[in-house]
């Protein structure tokens, strides 16, 4: 059966105000079923308040072969990290 069913990626928002995070994938016949499967598979322990699903084939991904060109140039630019600031105690979720 699964050869007929598309693969979907699932993103869950844990609480209002937080971002949706990728939690996994599943098979479904269409978007509606993908949402229901996501609900039943990934929110059984109150993990979320919102679900996004997207067909895996619709995701444009970077090529692992190009990883060096894409990511290594950032390695020696430590000054881009905001590690020289102190974060106020009231600011959560950073």
């Amino acid at each position, binding site marked *: *059966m*699964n050869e007929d*069913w598309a693969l979907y990626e699932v993103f869950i928002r844990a609480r209002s105000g937080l971002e949706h995070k990728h939690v996994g994938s*599943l*098979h*479904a*016949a269409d978007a*509606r*079923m993908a949402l*229901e*499967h996501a*609900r*039943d*598979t990934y929110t*059984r322990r109150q993990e979320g308040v919102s679900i996004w699903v997207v067909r895996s084939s619709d995701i444009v991904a970077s090529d692992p072969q190009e990883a060096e060109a894409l990511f290594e140039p950032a390695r020696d630019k430590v000054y881009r990290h905001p590690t020289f600031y102190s974060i106020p105690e009231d600011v959560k979720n950073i």
Partner: protein
Amino acid sequence: MITAADCTAGAVSAEERFRYLLRLADTSLVLGQRLSGWVGHAPTLEEDLALGNITLDLIGQARLLLAYAGQVEGRGRDEDQLAFLRDAPEFFNVTLAEQPNGDFGQTIVRQALLDAWQVELYHSLIGSTDEQLANIAAKAMKECRYHWRFSCGWLVRLGDGTEESHARVQAALDGLWRFTGELLTPDALDAHMASHGIAPPLAVIRSRWEARVTAALEEATLRQPPPAYFPWLGKRGVHSEHLGQLLTEMQHLQRLHPGATW
């Protein structure tokens, strides 16, 4: 058995309230036990989890209702004793709930017909004059709305699917339809509960159920079977052999080792 004559008296007796609560509780319990038979056997992992979730919702509803029924009865029986130590004639679930799983299509048809009923029934029970029942209904209604979304979705997929899936769910519908009369036709106890505002009049549930189910069957391109006369059986404690087999499995441990815990 409670007769019409018993129910004409003014107040609702503890026995009558207990009996009515068991109709609701046992329907959820027996349907949940039936569905649990799919765990590990569903067509896909995702459907396995979905059916397992619905099972747990139903058993959760049964626990709340049985615990309350035990209080109303006043003989010190808790939800476990009521679930595991009663015999088939003491169960008052509607007959549709105990019908076998059959193939996936038959399970979906049984589920959709009962989900549509539970959604409407619990929705109305939120306004019950019985406050504790109203609270349980408020929780159960949310669960049942999702159950209906699931079963109705599959009903449409299978009905409006391939030639084979259509033929299978149509056959299941034709086979199970005769049990729907019991859901929608009040007997004396139903009428008595309705007259005290504890339960809604089943005539109201009937019209809402028919609207919901007719629309779903149309979308699923399924033929609605003609109305069939069916007497009250399950909710009067008269069951098919299917319930006895189901209880044998469900109650096996407690019958063999009474009071066993884990």
